[in-house]
């Protein structure tokens, strides 16, 4: 652990990643204190001050109904992060169980589970989430469900591949020889060896979930107004390019900063934990 911390802080790229993530998380958590106009997270209108370019006190300008963009971006971060964490908290366990079972038990279990995985992976991720969102009401909870539905197969494939390799290893055979149960072998012997890869992927994915969720809301299939969301902010501003550039550029860069941070850290973790994809 100490070695990992030393490596992270010695590597400028991963250090940048940690700083970016810290910035995003802190600004999301403390949005109530940092945001100059906390009330602007909701349905507020200030027509006297609408569509203004960045100038004090609206450092990122104001939107089409006069709300402070900077404040809205901070609150949007909060929703994005919650969404990312919830999606992974749901998708990863499902993927792990499916992957372990398919890889270790094999046979018909493997066929059914991995072909199901293939089916999910055969629909371009965004399209799958879109079609789910299309038939459901566009709410935050449904958005999480849609993204979760497209996310678990990646983990089942990852865990499946590692399990296939690990189950031939000596320590698994040894555990089988002393009569350990299947559950014990799957979760206590094999799973710990999948963890480095899973943790690495989760770090990277936290960024990608935010990215995909913003894509959904960009298309109007995600979080609905007046809840602040980075993707729908870009979508609303897109028709006012180039004159009202701040409407799209700042929310867009906000997505970039958050995802970039998680990617930098994920890359560093991959090097430290020695986990391949």
């Amino acid at each position, binding site marked *: 652990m100490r070695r990992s911390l030393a490596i992270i802080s010695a590597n400028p790229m991963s250090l940048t990643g940690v700083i970016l993530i810290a910035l995003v998380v802190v600004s999301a958590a403390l949005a109530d204190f940092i945001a100059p106009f906390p009330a602007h997270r909701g349905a507020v209108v200030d027509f006297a001050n609408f569509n203004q370019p960045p100038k004090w006190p609206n450092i990122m300008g104001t939107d089409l109904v006069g709300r402070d963009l900077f404040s809205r971006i901070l609150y949007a971060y909060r929703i994005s992060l919650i969404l990312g964490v919830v999606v992974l908290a749901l998708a990863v366990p499902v993927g792990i169980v499916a992957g372990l079972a398919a890889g270790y038990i094999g046979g018909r279990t493997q066929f059914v589970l991995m072909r199901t995985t293939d089916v999910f992976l055969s629909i371009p991720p965004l*399209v799958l989430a*879109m079609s789910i969102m299309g038939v459901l009401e566009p709410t935050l909870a449904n958005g999480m469900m849609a993204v979760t539905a497209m996310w678990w197969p990646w983990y089942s494939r990852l865990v499946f591949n590692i399990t296939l390799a690990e189950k031939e290893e000596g320590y698994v055979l040894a555990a089988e020889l002393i009569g350990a149960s299947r559950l014990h072998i799957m979760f206590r012997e094999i799973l710990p060896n999948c963890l480095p890869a899973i943790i690495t992927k989760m770090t990277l994915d936290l960024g990608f979930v935010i990215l995909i969720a913003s894509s959904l809301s960009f298309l109007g299939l995600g979080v609905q107004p007046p809840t602040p969301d980075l993707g729908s902010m*870009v979508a609303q501003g897109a028709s006012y390019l180039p004159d009202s550039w701040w409407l799209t550029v700042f929310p867009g860069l906000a997505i*970039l900063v958050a995802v970039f941070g998680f990617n930098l850290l994920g890359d560093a973790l991959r090097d430290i934990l020695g986990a391949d994809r």
Partner: protein
Amino acid sequence: MRSVCKLLAGRVAISLLVLAGVSVLVFAIARIIPGDPARIALGPNATAEQVRKLREQLHLDEPVWIQYGFFVRDLAKGDLGVSLYTNRPVTTDIAQFLPATLELILVAGIFMIGIGLPLGILSARYRGRAVDHVIRIASLLGVSAPSFVWAVILMLLFAFFLPLFPIAGRISTDYEIARATGFLLVDSLLAANFAAFGNALWHIVLPAFALALSGIGQAARLTRANMIETYEKPFIEMARSYGFPEKRIARRYAFRPSLIPSLTILGLDFAAMLGNAFLVEAIFAWPGLSRYGVTVILRKDLNAIVGTVLIISAAFLIANLVVDLLIAFLNPRIRYGQESK
């Protein structure tokens, strides 16, 4: 060659199986829809009689598995039903909008391969040096933003700030191209209208590049990682012991073996563009499948949703089949029927 045929047959069979699974999944998604699709399609002013008729026509009163049976029967005939939004067969709608999207994706794919792979090679060859750091950061940035953000940034920079490229559309209105394939780049060449071809190319560069950016980043990262792994192999040391120049070792001896594991993932990335194209099309007002897809989703147009997702998934599977074939072609072990461990 025979083993390649066998391999291909196996993959086609699996793809069909998967496609069948996709149809079940999509169908299931479409049927959990809250609200009455017939009522939504006809609008609030329709009479109960009209709604009843449409429900009957769409078999909406039958049990779900019978509905699925009808659906599969029609599908076998190449009939995806009628879109409740456009009142035209879904196949007609898709045939109209798909080529523009495919064209965009293909050009983006060329960018992805043509820019991403060389960057990855360069990065691996100069591992740890300044070039490597620059490429690593750039490719990480590339994958760190959704393509609509890149589309906005590229448009601001290269269409407004530096007006090098057009802002939107597929081609200037001055050109009239007879529709043959639906691919403007192909149709303009068929019509021997090179000015139109140039114009269409000029229009496609920016949206295709925006779509390709994350793919380029991914390709560069993957190629770098696999090349670095290959560099540890004894045959690279052997090539060095024979005094081959480093450039040649990178491009030939290390790249070829590392391309094989990269390809599967690149195939997936390429296919992911089918979804991301929706995002770029919206920004650049590209007349592809995006607007249609989003509209039918928002209108809960069941037949059109199911049809669109099925067609996209089929395209996705075909892309993966092509990748499998390419791998078989590049990897002699598979070509000669000896699967590598």
